[in-house]
């Protein structure tokens, strides 16, 4: 008994002495490191998850107004994100406030907001928000259902004004301070802004598609010198601008043989383009007319300079969203229909990693 007492006494004295050498953890807070080109955003119903495609690690999160956030866009030169958001004073009802919120890179926190008309088309689509080429003006798509665009000067943090754009949607920045829109009459509309962000000129292209026969997807992709539109049947339209002259050049991503096999483009964010390499990545499926939101069973890689397919990637699980990063060794990020988020080597066309537990489904993906 005496021995046990001695041992207990020894332990009682010794253990606190050992613990005294252990420094307690300091609980702190990370700041986000500088984004790399391999980073991407998965915009979900719970906010925007920021990942590094190289490591697969999450870097942080933007708490957006969830369902009421049309889109989000990072802008490296000012180290800021821009989001067009609607808020209600009582959750799902009450007074509505529409704002462009500016978030910083370091803390992913709101640092400014600019109130805009309560008209944001809250459909979550990348093309509902775009920054002009000079980085000064942010255009936000409105629908009430009348269609218009709100212009915000994000440098000076001011709302500039609203531009009526009946029958046209999707914002495609071009040149320094202009943007294009797709119109329901089968044309493209050019809106040019002056230095202060007000409309200075508007030009309409010739009609080049018939919406009731073969509509173009409302998700165009930016090329090195313009935009590429793809129709539901697989026609491709290169759109470029010289001065105020709009040029449209038509070709096709499907051959006659592909069409016989009923290959069609489809998905939600179904295509993305590496601008420097001129490589288009597009989700394809076999189906009938009006299956334009059908998830893709394959990804086709199309060289847009040679206007021919150079690879096909078969998917184990159909996918509906993809984006390619713009680095020299690009990553292709693919969101499948079972909430999987996969990172491919976009040149070798091979899966490099699958992001573990990626959170809610990606509504769309944004590259940095």
């Amino acid at each position: 008994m005496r021995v046990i007492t001695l041992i207990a006494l020894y332990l009682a004295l010794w253990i606190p002495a050992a613990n005294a050498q252990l420094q307690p953890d300091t609980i702190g807070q990370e700041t986000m490191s500088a984004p790399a080109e391999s980073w991407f955003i998965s915009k979900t119903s719970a906010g925007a998850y920021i990942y590094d495609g190289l490591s697969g690690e999450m870097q942080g999160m933007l708490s957006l107004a969830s369902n009421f956030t049309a889109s989000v866009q990072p802008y490296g030169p000012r180290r800021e994100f821009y989001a067009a958001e609607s808020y209600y004073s009582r959750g799902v009802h009450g007074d509505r406030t529409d704002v462009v919120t500016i978030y910083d890179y370091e803390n992913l926190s709101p640092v400014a907001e600019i109130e805009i008309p309560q008209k944001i088309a809250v459909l979550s689509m990348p093309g509902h928000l775009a920054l002009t080429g000079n980085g000064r003006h942010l255009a936000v798509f409105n629908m009430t259902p009348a269609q218009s665009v709100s212009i915000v000067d994000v440098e000076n943090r001011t709302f500039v004004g609203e531009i009526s754009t009946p029958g046209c949607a999707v914002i495609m920045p071009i040149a320094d301070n202009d943007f294009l829109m797709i119109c329901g009459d089968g044309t493209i509309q050019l809106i040019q802004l002056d230095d202060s962000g007000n409309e200075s000129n508007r030009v309409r292209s010739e009609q080049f598609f018939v919406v009731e026969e073969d509509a173009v997807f409302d998700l165009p992709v930016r090329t090195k010198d313009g935009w590429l539109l793809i129709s539901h049947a697989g026609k491709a339209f290169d759109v470029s601008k010289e001065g105020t002259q709009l040029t449209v050049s038509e070709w096709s991503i499907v051959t006659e043989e592909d069409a016989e096999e009923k290959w069609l483009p489809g998905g939600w964010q179904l295509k993305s383009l590496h601008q420097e390499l001129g490589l288009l990545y597009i989700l394809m499926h076999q189906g009938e007319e009006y299956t334009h939101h059908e998830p893709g069973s394959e990804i086709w890689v199309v060289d847009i300079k040679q206007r021919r397919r150079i690879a096909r990637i078969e998917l184990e699980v159909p996918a509906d969203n993809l984006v390619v990063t713009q680095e020299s060794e690009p990553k292709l990020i693919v969101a499948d229909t079972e909430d999987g988020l996969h990172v491919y080597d976009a040149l070798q066309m091979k899966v490099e990693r699958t992001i573990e537990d990626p959170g809610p489904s990606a509504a769309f993906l944004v590259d940095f």
Partner: protein
Amino acid sequence: MKKDSLIDKSYAWLDRHTGDSSRQLARSTSRRGFIGKLGAMLAGVAFLPLLPVSRPFAQETLGEIGDPQSCDYWRYCALSGTLCTCCGGTTTSCPPGAEISPITWVGTCRNPVDDMDYLISYNDCCGKSTCRRCSCHNTERELPVYYPSKSNSVLWCFGTEARNYHCTVAGVLGVAATDD
């Protein structure tokens, strides 16, 4: 697919298109707001008479088969959203407390009973949390957002007091006129 992921996926789909665009014009005191509201109301009211609805339909009773709580129900051929029939409403009425949007998108669906095409008005029910039951996404004759009257990729809670999306109903407007 696991139920949880199905719900998340449905919710993501709604997120993609949980629109809720504007129209908080009622209490706006500005002249511009009033004119905007008036314009949209007129547009909505003026829309119905222009629809290519065949007159004889008005005298007939519609025969239907199928499950109104299923995405495959014939009226839902161009419906994207959650079915009000699963949320306390019917094919043509909103669940309790949800406000029906007077401005709609329109689909053309074939009724399997008589093999005829009908124009269907898809009205969103608004002002409550999204009902995350029976989520569907059908795209028969659906067109992109730049052609709004046939686009289901937008939430259509326009012209209502509160504009949060709850669910969608599908009302038959009439027999679709044929081209010939």
